[in-house]
């Protein structure tokens, strides 16, 4: 029974990682950049949600919607001001800029909301479900997290594979020059990708802080790095890879915490990542590109 409980908790944590990893993987797929500021967008989303629900007494659903809206706008502004002028720049310069944006968001949050941890209110106030005569109890937030993740995956897959905008996104990630020649507005497509990723980060922020309710300006940093790991794990650039990587990472982390050691769980997660990359250098679902001379 413990095994099942850990598995469900792992799936729930993994779902959050998967949603964050989506933001990384989409931006990487299309702009070939590691957006290290993504973790901090999660934190901003969580704060917006926190204030909407606990201070202005809005219903949780409205709070999350507001967070998604503001984070989407934030994503677009950041992309416009910091990343867009660097489209032609070397990738390391873009990486450092992303880190600068990450510091900027963290310190703005520190000034606006102080470093005191806030206790995030649960967005669902219902008792947990008891199964097997009370032996297994699952909270509603766990179920909601997994369901949300599955829904997002389905919608996003439909969007990328069935709509015109999705087709434009795939074209841009395949070959920007050719996409431009086919009349696709590459700049707008990249901005849209950032907007979607940031909106998803807001949802992930609300879910993350419902499950682990301490909220600080640095809340987003570690989940950000882990979700990035998840994206690489599954094969960066691939949407189903992000889902698979996120879920696996969550399950491994919870099992490592339960059966090996809670202090060393991060080390175990990263060790598994290294082993996977050694066997499959492009991640689980990533495509290996053969270099031609």
């Amino acid at each position, binding site marked *: 029974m413990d095994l099942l409980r850990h598995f469900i908790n792992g799936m729930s944590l993994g779902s959050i990682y998967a949603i964050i990893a989506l933001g990384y993987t989409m931006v*990487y797929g299309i702009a070939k950049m*590691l957006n*290290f500021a993504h973790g901090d967008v999660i934190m901003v989303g969580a704060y917006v949600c926190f204030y909407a629900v606990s201070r202005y007494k809005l219903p949780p659903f409205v709070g999350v919607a507001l967070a998604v809206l503001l984070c989407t706008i934030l994503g677009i502004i950041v992309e416009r001001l*910091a990343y867009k*002028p*660097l489209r*032609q*720049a*070397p990738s*390391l*310069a*873009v*990486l*450092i*800029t992303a*880190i*600068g*944006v990450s*510091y*900027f968001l*963290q*310190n*703005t949050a*520190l*000034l606006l909301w102080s470093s005191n941890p806030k206790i995030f209110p649960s967005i669902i106030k219902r008792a947990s479900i008891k199964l097997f005569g009370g032996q297994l109890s699952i909270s509603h937030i766990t179920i909601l997290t997994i369901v949300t993740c599955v829904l997002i995956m389905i919608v996003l897959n439909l969007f990328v594979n069935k709509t015109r905008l999705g087709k434009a996104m795939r074209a841009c990630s395949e070959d920007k020059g050719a996409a431009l020649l086919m009349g696709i507005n590459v700049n707008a497509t990249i901005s849209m990708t950032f907007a979607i990723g940031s909106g998803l980060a807001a949802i992930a922020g609300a879910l993350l802080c419902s499950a682990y309710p301490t909220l600080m300006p640095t809340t987003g940093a570690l989940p950000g*790095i882990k979700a*990035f*790991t998840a994206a*690489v794990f599954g094969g*960066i650039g691939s949407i189903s890879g992000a889902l698979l990587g996120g879920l696996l990472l969550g399950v491994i982390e919870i099992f490592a915490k339960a059966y090996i*050691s809670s*202090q*060393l769980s*991060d*080390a175990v997660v*990263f*060790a598994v*990542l*290294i082993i996977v*990359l*050694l066997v499959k*250098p*492009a*991640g689980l679902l990533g495509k290996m590109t053969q*270099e031609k*001379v």
Partner: protein
Amino acid sequence: MALKKFISLKRSENRKVFITYIAVIAAFIICQGLSMAGLLSSSMQGMLVPICAYMVMAISLNLVVGVSGELSLGHAGFMSVGAFSGVAAAIIMQNFITYAPLRLALAMIIGALFASIAGFLIGVPVLRLKGDYLAIVTLAFGEIIKSILNNFFLGIDQNGLHMSMLKDTTNLAEGGRLIIRGPMGINGITKISTFIAGFILVMIALIIVFNLVNSRLGRALMAIRDDRIAAESIGLDVTKSKMTAFVISAALAGAAGCLFAMNYFTIEARKFDFNMSILILVFVVLGGQGNFLGSMIAAAALTILPEKLREFADYRMLLYAVILIMAMLISNNDEIKYFFRKLNPFRNKQEAE
């Protein structure tokens, strides 16, 4: 002949090396002079050793990122291996080597040795990967090293060394001393790092790196960086060259970590986290990849800057972030680049060469 070759400054690489040495020595003399005349504020005085350590870190990472062309996001890991092994060695040696500079030198050598072993062990799997995948694996190793050192216990008593993981089960005999205390790190360090030691380490690092870059191995590394397939096809051993650079870089980082740690009373593994790795990467990118003098200047400037911004109090780190972003935007702006190229007096000469 050798001397003539050394002094011959016609080749631009030689000129660059010469300018770098002169600049470092001049900076050292100025700082030392100011410090002796009592003109440096106490906060500046306290920053001299960390700046030296950061400079060595910047040189070491620049070897991997700039010359070898691999993005490493876990360089703080090597720094912490060097710091912990070096400081532990210094504490063990405390009783029978009383001359502090000798103890510091030995500690740095031991730190460099342990870090290079770590570099070799990590290099074996890491250097098989490419690009961003390599970067993420170095990040993962940095985090693993941090987790392990955070749960590592090391003690000494008359029966020798005792170590354990997770829990303190060293069971030291009477009069023994627990050196590494897991999450508490090491405390009660005797501060033996000095600015002169830092300067010597910077010079040693520069001599090692410049000789490496201008050697057969250095040219091989640059050829591999520019085109791996072409380099392989003319018979260069890609893995061996990269591994050598990686291990040397790790050793320098270990020595720098030891110097850094010996400047504080306590060190914890938490200090050498992802943010530290990123900070060093920022020095390298801001100073210019492959440009050692530039990355050293960036290291010094970005260490002093947060202190100088202290008058802005709470807005300090916010300004730091804005300056970082602006620096990246400005240095990659084509119009500004063009403007500076026009100003450069060596322009025609350089193009002719």
